[in-house]
């Protein structure tokens, strides 16, 4: 789906008026994917169908007119069942996708997106993966050199770093991922995609403490989770998205109660 030049200009031009308090402003965002009905996966098929005029499209609305704001220093949680559009909204906020309609205002330079389990190469050693992963999420070589010992220590992986990641347990991998991602000096906007349910009970406590430390460091945090306890324990605001629609925004406890009630039915 190409965007018209006019639409691009609109996006660039739009600036909310009062931005002293908000860090993320999502305004009337609609995301539609054009899905070809039983998609042509081969060129031959595509050509045959185009000639016959059989290319049928159906629009799939992943997000429907979503608006919310997140203020500076707030810890907001997005909750919703699987496939409700949570990760789509994250991709839009982090800039990976451009919405079909509506706008998002956020200073992308400040955003740090934290997801787990991506970017590790099982054939490389732990040490090599730290450098690879660090490079990918934007650390310089000097910075990784400096922080390397802290990362290993936080992940509790002393003595395993020259081992191939292929031989790690899944808990070890996610601990390392968490340690690398949080090694940076507190980012201003931190987006966490299902990261707070990592490792065993003890590591979970430790990681929650680390996140809290970042929150106290003045970061604005956006957590995405389908676990209500994570939202209740950490957030000051909850946003419930269900089947692409905004259901409820407000106090985490109230929103979580409503969400759980729906799940029970």
């Amino acid at each position, binding site marked *: 789906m190409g965007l018209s030049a006019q639409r691009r200009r609109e996006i660039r031009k739009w600036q909310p008026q009062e931005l002293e308090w908000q860090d993320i402003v999502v305004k009337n965002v609609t995301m539609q994917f054009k899905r070809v009905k039983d998609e042509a*996966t081969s060129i031959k098929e595509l050509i045959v169908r185009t000639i016959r005029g059989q290319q049928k499209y159906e629009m799939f609305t992943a997000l429907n007119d979503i608006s919310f704001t997140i203020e500076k220093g707030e810890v907001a949680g997005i909750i919703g069942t699987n496939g409700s559009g949570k990760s789509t909204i994250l991709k839009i906020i982090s800039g990976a996708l451009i919405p079909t309609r509506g706008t998002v205002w956020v200073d992308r330079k400040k955003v740090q*997106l934290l997801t787990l389990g991506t970017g590790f190469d099982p054939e490389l050693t732990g040490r090599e993966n730290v450098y690879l992963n660090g*490079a*990918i999420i934007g650390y*310089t070589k000097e910075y990784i050199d400096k922080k390397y010992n802290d990362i290993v220590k936080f992940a509790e992986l002393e003595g395993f770093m020259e081992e191939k990641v292929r031989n790690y347990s899944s808990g070890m991998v996610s601990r390392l991922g968490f340690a690398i991602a949080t090694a940076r000096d507190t980012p201003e906007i931190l987006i966490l995609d299902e990261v707070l349910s990592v490792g065993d009970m003890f590591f979970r406590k430790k990681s929650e403490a680390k996140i809290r430390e970042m929150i106290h460091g003045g970061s604005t945090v956006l957590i995405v989770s389908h676990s209500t306890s994570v939202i209740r324990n950490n957030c000051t605001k909850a946003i419930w998205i269900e089947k692409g629609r905004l259901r409820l925004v407000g106090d985490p406890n109230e929103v979580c109660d409503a969400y759980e009630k729906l799940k029970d039915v």
Partner: protein
Amino acid sequence: MTTSQQHKQYTFVVKQLTSRELKRKYSRSYLGIIWSVLNPLLSMAVLSLIFSQLFRRSIENYPIYYLTGYILWQTFTGATNSAMTTLVDNKMLLLKVKFPMDLFILTRVYTALINLCYSLVAYVVMLVVFKISLKWTMLLAPFIILCLFLFSLGISYILATAYVFFGDVKHLYTVILTLWMYCSAIFYPVEQLQGFIRIIIWNNPLFTYINCLRKAVMYGTIPEYIEFLQMILWGVGMYLIGYYIFKKSKNKIMQKI
């Protein structure tokens, strides 16, 4: 971040990704990277065994003739074949990263270039073995390789974009490569061919690169004016076309992935 800092960071990323590619390629073999040196030698031995009698009169130093073509051809196919799938392979990373996704394509082509450097070790050894004397025209080799690099990069941009939308580009490309290889005069003398196929070969950019390198290394002659023009135009032109197509489709790629 200033531009120079950003540049430095991108270089670091490409280096890290490249070292991953190299390590992974040989991660389950004992000889590891030495295979990059051994492969061309073994292939040269095989082909020489079969064809050097056949082409004895028309080509002197058949093994070198073949090896020159082979290493450039391998660089090109290695680069384009691996770059084609890179966006799909690194799907998960693409959504997470903050650097342009061109770097993934650049990395795979650069990896092929590093591989070429290892193969050049074998090549130099063979030049000594076959008593090819030093010539100043050999200094042209880096220039030829640079043009080939740009050409491969351009093709890679197009293939990587196409592969995101159609998986069968991969199979189609295999067939095209076979045809392309036979049209690049890697293991036979080009003089014997006549007519239509001759025109194709002389207009084949890869043949131009191979032929110019042969001239520079084996015969000590400078490529003709028109050949220089061909090398530069194919290299730069293909790079620009590829990059333009890739840039145009960037948004679509993100949605598809």
